[in-house]
C-alpha cells in the first residue's frame, strides 16, 4: 500500500478549475484542437450541404432566388454559429454532436455578446488559411483558446460527463484489520466501485496486491475481502 503516496498533488490534465461565487470548485474539461476541428468540419459539411441543396433549388427562381441564396450565405456564415452558441446551450450542431459546448471562462453559459465576439473574430483566427492564427494561439495559450476565445473570455469544454459505475448496496461489510490512511481508504473505495467494470480475473489480481490486508489469501478471497472493506469504508454496516 505504499505506492499511493506517489500520486502527484496536481495532475497534468486539461481540466480547468473554476471557483464559483457559491464557494465551490467546479472542473471543466477543456476541449483540444482536434475535437474542435472535428466539430467545425461537421458544421462546415452541414452548411455546405444546406447551401448546395437549397442553392440548387433556388437557382430556378432567377434573381429572387439568387438574392435568397446570398442572404442564406450571410446567415450560414455569420448568424449560424453566433445564434446557435448564444441560444442553444452554447453549441452549434457540430459541437453538439461532438459533445462540446462554449462557456464563459467562469463556467457560466455564454450570451449573445460573447458569442458575437468570438464568431466575428473568427475571420482573424482563420487567417491566413484554415485557422492558421487560431491554431498557433491555441497551442500558445492555456485552455486551447483561439484569439476569438481570448477576446470573448470563452472556453470550449466537453459537456458529456463520464457515466459513473453503479454501486453495490447489497452485500455485507467488514472493517479493515489495520488503520488506513485517507488516500488508502480512497483507493479501496474506488476499487470497490470499479471492480464491476473489470474482469473477475483482473480485479482478483489487483486485490492480491493490497497487502497486508489481503496477505496470504487466494485471489478470489482477496477480492471479496477488499470489496467488503470498501463497503465498510463507505459506511455500510
Amino acid at each position, binding site marked *: 500500500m505504499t505506492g499511493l503516496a506517489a500520486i502527484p498533488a496536481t495532475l497534468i490534465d486539461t481540466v480547468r478549475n473554476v471557483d464559483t461565487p457559491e464557494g465551490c470548485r*467546479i472542473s471543466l474539461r477543456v476541449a483540444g484542437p482536434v475535437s474542435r476541428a472535428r466539430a467545425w468540419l461537421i458544421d462546415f459539411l452541414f452548411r455546405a450541404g444546406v447551401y448546395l441543396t437549397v442553392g440548387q433549388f433556388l437557382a430556378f427562381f432567377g434573381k*429572387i432566388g439568387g438574392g435568397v441564396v446570398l442572404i442564406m450565405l450571410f446567415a450560414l456564415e455569420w448568424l449560424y454559429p453566433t445564434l446557435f452558441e448564444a441560444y442553444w446551450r452554447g453549441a452549434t450542431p457540430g459541437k453538439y454532436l461532438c459533445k462540446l459546448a462554449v462557456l464563459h471562462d467562469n463556467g457560466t453559459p455564454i450570451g449573445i455578446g460573447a458569442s458575437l465576439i468570438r464568431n466575428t473574430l473568427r475571420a482573424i483566427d482563420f487567417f491566413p488559411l484554415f485557422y492558421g492564427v487560431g491554431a498557433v494561439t491555441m497551442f500558445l495559450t492555456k485552455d486551447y483558446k483561439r484569439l476569438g476565445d481570448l477576446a470573448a473570455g470563452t472556453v470550449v469544454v466537453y459537456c458529456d460527463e463520464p457515466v459513473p459505475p453503479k454501486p453495490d448496496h447489497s452485500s455485507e461489510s467488514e472493517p479493515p484489520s489495520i488503520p488506513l490512511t485517507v488516500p488508502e481508504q480512497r483507493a479501496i473505495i474506488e476499487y470497490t466501485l470499479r471492480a464491476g467494470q473489470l474482469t473477475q480475473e483482473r480485479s482478483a489480481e489487483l486485490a492480491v496486491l493490497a497487502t497486508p490486508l489481503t496477505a496470504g489469501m487466494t485471489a478470489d478471497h482477496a477480492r471479496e475481502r477488499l470489496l467488503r472493506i470498501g463497503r465498510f469504508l463507505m459506511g455500510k454496516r
Partner: protein
Amino acid sequence: MKEFQFVEMRQLTWAVWDDWLDSRGLAIRERLPFAAKELPHRFRELCHDLSIARDRDYSSLLIDSLHKRVLRAQQHIYGAQPRLRRAWLTFFLAGFPALVRGEWRFVIPALLLFFLPLAAYIPIAHYWPESVYLVIPADHAAQMEEMYSPDAPSIGRLRRDAGDDFRMLAAYIWNNVRLDFQCFAGGLLFGVGSIFYLVYNGLIIGATAGHLTRLGYIDTFWGFVAGHSSLELIGAVLAGAAGLRVGYALIAPGNLSRVTALKRSARIAIRMLSGAAVMTFSAAFVEAFWSPLPAVPVAIKYAVGGGLWVLLLAYFLFAGHGPAGDPRHAD
C-alpha cells in the same frame, strides 16, 4: 458521517434538483422546485454538499455525480437570458447613441480616417483624373460610368427588372454587413486591419465620387447615394471605431494584462459593432428600394438624404442622455 448516511440524508433534495434539471424548455421556468427567492440559498446548499463530499473523501462516484449536478444547476441558473426584445429596444433608443458619444476617442479618429481620404479624393480626381485608376480598376470605373450615366436605363445599376431590387438588397447585406464584421476583426491586428479598411474604403468611395462628379453625372450619382449615404457611411465608420478600440487595448492595455484589456474592450466594442451592423443592414434596404426609384425627382432624393443625415446626427448627439443610456445599465 459515512458516505451512505450522507447520501441517505441528502438524496431527496438531490432528486428534486434532478427533476428540475431534466425538464426542458418552458418547464425550466415553470417547474422551479423551490420558491424563486429560495433558489440562491438552495444552490449554495448543493454546492456545499459537493464541498463536503470532497473534503470527507467520499467516493468519486458520489463526488462526480454531485459535481455534475452543481454544474448543470449553475448552467441553468446563470444561463437565464434577459428579455431580448426589451434589451434591444433600450439599446437603440438610448444605449447606442450614449455609447458612441462615450467612445469619442475612437469614433473621431475613425471618422477622420474614413472621411479625410474620401473628401480629399474628390478634388484630386478633378485636377488629376488619371489618379482614379490607382484605386479603382479601369473596367470597374467603366461599369460605374455606365451605371450612373444620365441616359442609363436605370440609375445605380446596370439593368433593372422585377427581381433586381431584392437581388441587390441581398448583395448589399451580404457584402456590406460582412465588411463591417471584417473591419472590426481587423482591429485585432493591433488596429492595423481596421485602419486599412477605413482608409481604403474612404479612398474607393472618394475616387468613385470624384470620378463621376468630374464627368458631370451629378444628379444621377449624388441623387442615388444621398438616401442611404448617412446610414451606410456612419455604419462603416462605427464598425471601424469598434475595431480601433480593440486594437488600442492591445497596444496600450494600461494597468491590465493584454488579455484582460482585450476582453473588456471587446465587450464594449461588440455593442458598437452590433449597432453599426444594424445601421448597415438598414442602409441596404434604403439602397435597394428607395435610392434607385426613377420616378422620384432628384430634389426630393437630396431632401430625404439630407434629412436622414440631420436625424442621424441628432440621434447621436441628443438621444440616450437619461439613465437608460448609462453604460452601467447595459447588458
